[in-house]
């Protein structure tokens, strides 16, 4: 478990990254609606993911309404793939022990 990326291992961030890995981009409302977090929590997780270099945040305006889109970066994609590989390896080891 020590090898797992702790930024990704947090459930809300794992949900966000897994969702984003299936699409090109998604906005704040979509993630809020799907992941089931409060606005504050989602913002906080997105900040952490951006600081880790795993997502890019694009802020635009539709008229006067602010619009925020998120994309998984190549670093984020490869970190997520590595995370699943490591988790699969841990599970396989656990199954072998049993």
């Amino acid at each position: 478990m020590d090898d797992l990326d702790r930024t990704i291992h947090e459930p809300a961030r794992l949900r966000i990254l897994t969702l984003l890995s299936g699409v090109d981009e998604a906005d704040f409302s979509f993630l809020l609606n799907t992941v089931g977090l409060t606005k504050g929590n989602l913002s906080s997780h997105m900040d952490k993911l951006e600081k880790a270099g795993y997502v890019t945040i694009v802020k635009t305006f539709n008229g006067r309404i602010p619009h925020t889109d998120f994309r998984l970066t190549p670093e984020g994609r490869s970190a997520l793939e590595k995370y699943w590989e490591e988790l699969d390896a841990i599970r396989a080891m656990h199954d072998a022990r049993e």
Partner: protein
Amino acid sequence: MTTSAKNQYQAGDPRQIVRWARRYAQSRTISFLVQWVFIVVMVMGIGLAASLTQAAHQEGKTATFALSVIFMFLAALALVWFSVSRWSGELVFSITNWLYGREGYVSYSGNHPDKSLPLWLTGLGGGLLAYHLLGALLISFNYMHIKYMQPWSAAYMTPYLILMVVYQRLGFWAWLWPVLYGLHAIALMLGLPIRFGWELELFNIIAPIFTYGLIAILIGHAYSRYALWKLKSLTQTTIPEYDEAAPDGDQEEERAETPTNG
């Protein structure tokens, strides 16, 4: 690629989220509904102009003939303008966002994240227009019987739309339109009793476009409801929150970074 949507994961594997997020993004059909309404209006405009041109030509009414040809080209130009203009793109985007307001925005375009079509496909779009104008003119000047209008249209439209569906990585629903349109053409050529009478001849092309398009879009929309439900359910059940009694990831992380005394 471990997170590929093509991989088969067991029930309960969080990586199924990838597949359902993609399916949902591919099935949001409201933007197609808006574009579809415009296309139907333009096709009706071109068809009406073609009928007028034919009637005016037969009756030798030069002024009406000239006006209907001009109207036909204006309708065609409006179709091209709507297809390429930034204004129409923003209009469709705004309407889509308004209708999907509470669900938010998500997109998937496969390997083409810039979303712009390659030049050859845009060229084929222009060809589609020229091909239909040619068909309308052939009918107007009695070089082709009007009963071949839909099969003539399908000979270009079906492969063109299939190319668009493949290129834009749209969901299964998007195949329905071109496939049903092509099958309709085959049925007409085989003489199956699905033809409107001569007084409603235009409906032989308008009805398949209208009906099959609507069927595809509504099936896509219904599927997107299911995909969204499935996505929410998977997202919140396959990756559960930490047990409240257990330390959460962030707290654990912060503790690990805090030096202990003694």
